[in-house]
């Protein structure tokens, strides 16, 4: 069965520093991977996704992620963070069961950008 593990529950980082949010997945079939961001009291916004093709995926707001099949990882990176990047970040994988496509989310990583 597919599952997602986000290794860090909280990540504090200073403004303009680089950041990496870690995500590992388990899957025995085709992999569709996503990163979503959730700002306080809001829904989820898609940052980027990997369906196939190039393993380096670029998303919105300067974020990128690399799909690593051998390490079953999909870590999210940004070279220089801003205060406005403070939010909760969720890694997700799609599980396909009997024609149903459902997202399996990790428990989230709270990114706190410090001035």
């Amino acid at each position, binding site marked *: 069965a597919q599952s997602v593990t986000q290794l860090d529950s909280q990540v504090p980082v200073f403004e303009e520093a680089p950041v990496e949010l870690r995500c590992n997945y388990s899957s025995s079939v085709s992999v569709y991977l996503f990163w*979503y961001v959730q700002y306080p*009291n809001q*829904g*989820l916004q898609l940052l980027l996704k990997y369906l196939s093709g190039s393993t380096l995926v670029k998303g919105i707001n300067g974020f990128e992620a690399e799909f690593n099949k051998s390490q079953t990882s999909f870590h999210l990176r940004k070279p220089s963070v801003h205060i406005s990047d403070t939010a909760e970040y969720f890694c997700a994988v*799609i599980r396909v069961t009997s*024609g*149903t496509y459902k997202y399996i*989310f990790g*428990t989230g990583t709270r990114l706190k950008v410090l001035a």
Partner: protein
Amino acid sequence: DAGVTQSPTHLIKTRGQHVTLRCSPISGHKSVSWYQQVLGQGPQFIFQYYEKEERGRGNFPDRFSARQFPNYSSELNVNALLLGDSALYLCASSLGHENTEAFFGQGTRLTVV
């Protein structure tokens, strides 16, 4: 273009009551999914509807039900509310049932007291 809209944004109910949450997908999207996000956790899949038919159900009790209308909007109903049903309920829409790009609404914050 309007995104996914959910109503109401906040709701307070008493244990044992019933609640109906509503979702309007992005224009042209035919698939709607519902997720429950308990505080401090990631969203959990409840239902997927496509072309007005239920295509999948998560591990939730029968107190949870949903439907999709001819205009592709959807309702999530929860009966006999429990304190543990307090959560943010998210609706996601996508073009087809192959849900490889889901767009989420702002959610409905349900508090059961």
